[in-house]
């Protein structure tokens, strides 16, 4: 059963990624990425990372992808605004040929690791309580640094938005 769910989720994840890579229209690309993100959330649940499952759905599928789709529709991109990509297929083929050896190298290394039990853990792993205990004791400093980073990003976004308004006032 787990294998079947894993196969379905990984198929959807890879299919969404390929859609994002091949489509010309950015809206379809964003929808493909949305499918990938949701399938990865399912894979997190299979790996008994329940809190990560929630964070992935809330932050990625809920916030980031919504912002991307909102801005795509807000900009009202027409067909002629899209860049012409005449050499896209050749470049993608070359990229695939280049990436296959790297993938094989990594997977060769991973395959030599001893096999371990990857079944779903019932309790005491990956839940919000255990993760929170770990986050606020062992990882306190990185956690605080991340909060400063988010603050800086917030200020940066506001500054970028404000500068445009000023420029328009000067021009007008």
């Amino acid at each position, binding site marked *: 059963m787990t294998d079947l769910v894993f*196969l379905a989720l990984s198929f959807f994840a890879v299919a969404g990624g390929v859609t994002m*890579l091949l489509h010309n229209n950015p809206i379809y690309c964003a929808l493909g990425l949305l499918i990938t993100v949701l399938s990865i959330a399912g894979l997190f649940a299979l790996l008994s990372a329940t809190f990560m499952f929630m964070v992935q759905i809330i932050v990625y599928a809920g916030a980031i992808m919504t912002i991307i789709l909102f801005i795509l529709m807000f900009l009202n991109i027409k067909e002629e605004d899209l860049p012409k*990509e005449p050499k896209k297929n050749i470049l993608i083929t070359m990229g*695939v040929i280049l*990436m296959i050896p790297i993938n094989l190298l990594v*997977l060769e290394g991973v395959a030599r690791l001893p096999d*371990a039990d990857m079944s779903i853990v019932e309790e005491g792993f990956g839940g919000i309580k255990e993760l929170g205990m770990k986050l606020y004791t062992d*990882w306190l400093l990185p956690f605080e640094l*991340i909060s400063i980073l988010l603050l800086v990003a917030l200020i940066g976004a506001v500054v970028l938005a404000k500068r445009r308004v000023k420029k328009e006032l000067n021009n007008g």
Partner: protein
Amino acid sequence: MASLTGYATVSMILFSLGAIGVVSRRNVFVIYMSIELMLNGINLFLVTFARYHFNMDGQIISIMVIAIAAAEAAIFLSVIILLFKTKKSLDTDIFTELKQEVE
């Protein structure tokens, strides 16, 4: 099927698709989404190894990766809006303001 190698294969495929998208596409939005795809692949790798070693440090690192991706989304999308307002295009080849002119 749902073994360490299976999960590693999926995450490496996603990472490679993202890397290929960054170098081969010219749409700024698709490049941004490819970066997100690479981050997702690496997150899957981290969570897989967290389960493999039965140690939650990998999950905490991937939470931090998600936080950084959220911050990156805010900055990147505001920059894209500014670029699109001034240039009316999404082609990366047009954005050459900082390029040094060779004489």
